[in-house]
């Protein structure tokens, strides 16, 4: 069987995909990978569908071995990684020969790292998806000695994508949502002007934001539970904001001050504990424009995939290459 054997694995590694839509009315949120941009980047590197299942890794990865030659890609939070003892870079695709140990160690930058395999992980779907929904017990974390089946499919090793700056916090755009106007203009302005630190308490359901400010709405005790979408920022009883993620509950009784644009959510989920984040309102129309542009950019990621190292032997038409540009690009990779 084409598979990835797990020899040893960290405590926060699970199979994910784009999630399990269609069950909101039944009380089950979509779930899926925390950083959907990383899923799209891996798919672009391996030239396969973003629907292919991946391994999501928090904190550290593990030691793995392929039963057949395959190509892998590493995206999202950068972690130390080696194949057969040789260090390999993140945001790139690599050949993983059968039997060679793939060792993925601690996170160096960001929070959620991803391991992609050519063909995608082919674990048994449950309710139409392979995503592990940890808060409801759908699927299980990956454990030592697991054998994860892998689908068929080839890919080119040695390709890379540029890395963006989403791993250190920063500014996050939000749109007004159903309860934004229940908060006073003063509260909303103060919310925008506050620099938050990502609290260490964070999981796939939500991330708490710390500051010395509170943002409670005096009427919030009487709010009827209402629907949640990923990126909603709820103000909990103590006045602290929580950004709700893919594995939140379907409804919640705390009011939402706004909703993070889906394209900016990877910046929230990848912010390490203590990273500074700020929230900036854009109008609904601006948000729609920004998100539509991001959707197009995510779909076109394949065009930004570049060879990791330019080997002259692979250059069939040497004269057509801009050699100086290639040098600059190679230096950027370092």
């Amino acid at each position: 069987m084409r598979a990835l054997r797990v020899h040893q694995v960290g405590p926060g590694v699970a199979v994910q995909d784009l999630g399990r839509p269609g069950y909101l009315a039944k009380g089950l949120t979509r779930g899926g990978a925390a950083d959907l941009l990383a899923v799209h980047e891996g798919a672009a590197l391996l030239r396969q569908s973003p629907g292919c299942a991946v391994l999501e890794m928090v904190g550290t990865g593990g030691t793995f071995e392929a039963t057949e030659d395959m190509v892998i890609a590493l995206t999202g939070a950068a972690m130390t990684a080696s194949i057969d003892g040789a260090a390999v870079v993140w945001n790139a695709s690599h050949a993983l020969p059968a039997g060679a140990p793939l060792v993925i160690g601690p996170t160096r930058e960001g929070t959620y790292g991803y391991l992609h395999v050519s063909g995608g992980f082919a674990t048994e779907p449950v309710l139409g998806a392979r995503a592990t929904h940890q808060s409801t017990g759908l699927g299980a974390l990956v454990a030592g000695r697991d054998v994860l089946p892998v689908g068929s499919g080839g890919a080119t090793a040695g390709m890379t994508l540029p890395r963006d700056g989403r791993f250190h916090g920063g500014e996050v755009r939000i749109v007004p949502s159903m309860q934004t106007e229940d908060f006073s203009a003063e509260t909303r302005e103060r919310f925008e002007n506050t620099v938050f630190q990502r609290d260490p308490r964070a999981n796939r359901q939500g991330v708490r934001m710390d500051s010395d400010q509170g943002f409670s709405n005096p009427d919030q005790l009487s709010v009827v539970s209402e629907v949640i979408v990923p990126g909603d920022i709820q103000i909990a009883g103590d006045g602290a904001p929580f950004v709700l993620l893919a594995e939140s509950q379907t409804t919640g009784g705390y009011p939402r001050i706004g909703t993070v644009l889906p394209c900016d959510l990877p910046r929230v989920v990848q912010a390490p504990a203590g990273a500074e984040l700020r929230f900036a309102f854009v109008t609904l129309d601006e948000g729609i424009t920004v998100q539509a542009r991001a959707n197009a950019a995510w779909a076109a990621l394949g065009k930004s995939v570049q060879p990791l190292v330019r080997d002259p032997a692979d250059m069939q038409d040497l004269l057509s290459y801009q050699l100086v540009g290639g040098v600059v690009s190679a230096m950027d990779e370092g």
Partner: protein
Amino acid sequence: MTDFPKIRSVGLGGVLVTFGDKATDAANRAAIAFRGAVDALALPQIEESSSTLVSAFFRVDLAQHGFAPLHDALADVVAQQDWLTADLPGGRTLWTIPAVFGGPRAPQFGEAAEAAGLTAEAALAELTGTRLRVLTIGFAPGQPYLGTLGTHWDIPRQVGLTPHVPQGALVAAVRQVCLFAKDTPTGWRHVGQSAFRCFRPDAAEPFLLTPGDEVQFAAVTQAALERLEAHGVDGTERTVLG
């Protein structure tokens, strides 16, 4: 407030139509009926729908479709009738679920009856004689909030949490009964115990209940409940409502 129904965007993820700012029975019926009517239109932009206690939600990628066209399409449906007096959709299911009330398996039945100002006999008659509606499903997959009991059942949540109330428990507060999908800490009072499993991920039908369905509990003895449990069944009967 007279500004209901209210049509609002929810992030860039969908549109919410809300029928009141309090969890009334009429607003819940309206949300369920409205969701059914919109679902019947099969609008191509709507990827799925759900309903909460007082709202119908339509999941739409607003970045792709914009808000105004959806707002207008839903406003047209809102204007069709007074949704607070609308009939519930047809083809719903009545579920009859055996449960034991009181005794060691449902230790707060007596306390809840007293809080409602009822004798144990009267409380049992009301909890088993009332067809309850699935008001919404949430908190845990498949977990129904059922209502609406009479005003005397507007009993508050207890101040302290009961740390473990098991799967299949019937718990009561604020004129509602919740049927737990899993072992849960709760401030609601544990009045009954069934063998019903709200979420069956490996079954052909992983979720049985849908908002708008009706549930009637049938009182059984503890011995009868434990016979069901020993056989791994819940004794539930289903009837399709016209």
